[in-house]
């Protein structure tokens, strides 16, 4: 396995170098560096969007979620992603239109210009910063855990985090978004290939799907329905997750920026359709890997399950490829998020291109250091932390969504209510405010309040255009 890891790893690093050097030659202006010349075609678009979405979270977190909580995970994630892919082209159309009108540099800067209020920009940037940093950190944490388990005597856990952050910084600083998109394409293909084969092997191990689920039933039949053995998948939890995930293309800049940099709306349509198909294959594979783990590693800790199911139970070459695939997944998702934060930061800056580019690169470096520090102290619950990130940024929906589809400057009340919701949610994460109030989840309560105030605001001000 180790020799295959080095073999595939060397090929992967070579591809990264080629991607960076190709992108480096072409990149001249800051827009080329930050927005890849806004010239991404459908196939690259599908792969880069999928790579930004699927990460350590999908490699480690989702199979483990199926294993521990059962088939309700299908409603939690793939079904929620289904409507999110619909949002790509509906919201994407409006976003691209607005981006053309305002000259997009990043969502924070665009909101500042639309609202005519610098606090709109600061709010969007703060939301992204607060909730993307832990999300990036969990990717790196997941990978460090995995590598330390596989190669226990090679390097301490933090060294793996350092390596990934160093590689990430090196090629993104050199090649910009275009290099990231190229590396995403490699990762997307790797992820699809590795997970499909492993998922198939997991079914073959039991002979067929029916036998796999028969054995799951013998282990714990609560895995076959909601709310699952630990009672996680309540209707409220699923609805809140559904809304948070549905809103990702609106509220998380690594996704909105990928919509903006597409060559045309036609390519964006193809991207939305393509991602929905790629995602299905990936999710089916993770479901079967999780169910396989529920039978064979029902009482094992996450790391033990993942290393056995993805590596030691697989042929050596596939295990080697899986390690590289995980490394690539973490690299591209973390990079997408850090770079998106850099774009948001840049969109708030003023000055000539050269000084803005230098300050943005310094900011990228600082963000990466913060992420690395955070990855050492963060919890191991990958999926639930990712969900917190999705839910946290979703509190900015009234600002961004109404900002994008409005025909005139939206009211400041949207800024105030979103800011309050963002910090109330943050306080609940730190358990300063209860997560449930009178039997209702706090995030659902916040969504309802945000929805009502947003409707009142747009009706009273006549803000919307036909979208």
């Amino acid at each position, binding site marked *: 396995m180790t020799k295959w890891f080095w073999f595939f790893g060397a090929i992967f690093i070579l591809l990264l170098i080629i991607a960076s050097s190709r992108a480096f030659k072409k990149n001249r202006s800051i827009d080329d560096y930050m927005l890849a010349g806004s010239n991404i075609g459908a196939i690259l678009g599908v792969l880069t969007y999928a790579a930004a979405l699927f990460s350590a979270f999908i490699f480690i977190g989702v199979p483990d979620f199926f294993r521990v909580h059962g088939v309700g995970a*299908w*409603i939690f994630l793939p079904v929620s992603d*289904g409507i999110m*892919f*619909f949002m790509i082209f509906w919201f994407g*159309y409006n976003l691209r239109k607005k981006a053309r009108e305002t000259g997009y540099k990043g969502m924070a800067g665009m909101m500042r210009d639309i609202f005519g209020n610098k606090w709109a920009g600061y709010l969007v940037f703060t939301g992204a910063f607060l909730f993307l940093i832990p999300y990036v950190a969990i990717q790196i944490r997941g990978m460090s855990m995995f590598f330390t388990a596989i190669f226990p005597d090679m390097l301490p856990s933090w060294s793996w985090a350092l390596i990934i952050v160093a590689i990430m910084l090196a090629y993104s600083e050199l090649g910009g978004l275009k290099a990231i998109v190229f590396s995403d394409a490699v990762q997307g293909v790797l992820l699809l290939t590795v997970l499909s084969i492993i998922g198939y092997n997991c079914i073959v191990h039991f002979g067929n799907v*029916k036998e796999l689920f028969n054995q799951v039933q013998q282990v714990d*039949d609560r895995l*076959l329905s909601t709310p699952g053995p630990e009672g996680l998948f309540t209707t409220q939890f699923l609805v809140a997750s559904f809304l948070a995930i549905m809103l990702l293309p609106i509220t998380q800049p690594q996704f909105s920026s990928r919509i903006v940099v597409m060559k045309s709306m036609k390519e964006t349509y193809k991207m939305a359709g393509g991602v929905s198909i790629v995602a299905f294959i990936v999710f089916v594979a993770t479901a079967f890997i999780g169910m396989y783990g529920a039978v064979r590693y029902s009482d094992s800790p996450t790391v033990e399950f993942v290393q056995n199911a993805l590596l030691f139970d697989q042929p050596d070459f596939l295990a080697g490829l899986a390690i590289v695939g995980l490394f690539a997944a973490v690299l591209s998702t973390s990079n997408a998020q850090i770079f998106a934060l850099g774009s948001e930061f840049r969109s708030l800056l003023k000055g000539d291109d050269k000084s803005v580019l230098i300050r943005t690169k310094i900011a990228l470096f600082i963000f990466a250091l913060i992420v690395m520090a955070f990855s050492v102290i963060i919890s191991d619950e990958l999926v639930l932390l990712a969900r917190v990130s999705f839910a946290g940024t979703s509190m900015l929906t009234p600002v961004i969504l109404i900002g994008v589809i409005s025909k005139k400057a939206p009211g400041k009340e949207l800024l105030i209510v979103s800011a309050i919701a963002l910090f109330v949610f943050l306080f609940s994460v730190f358990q300063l405010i209860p997560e449930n109030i009178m039997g209702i989840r706090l995030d659902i309560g916040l969504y309802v309040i945000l929805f009502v105030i947003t409707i009142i605001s747009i009706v009273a001000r006549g803000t919307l255009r036909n979208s």
Partner: protein
Amino acid sequence: MKKLWSFARLGVIILSILIFTPLVIPKNEFRPEFMGMPYTLWVGILAYFGYVAFIMIGIYAHSKVKKEEGGND
């Protein structure tokens, strides 16, 4: 074509409501099974296919509607 675009949007909304009813997530119930898969999983997969279908219909209709309006880039 506008009707088709409205149909896609309405379909997505109705599907999104149905998902959270006992029709898709009956509590502690995994029968009837289909191809060996428990109820919530295979109905959830059907729901996903439903979204994909509405995405494809939506893309087709939305692109035509916006083209008529001269809105696509």
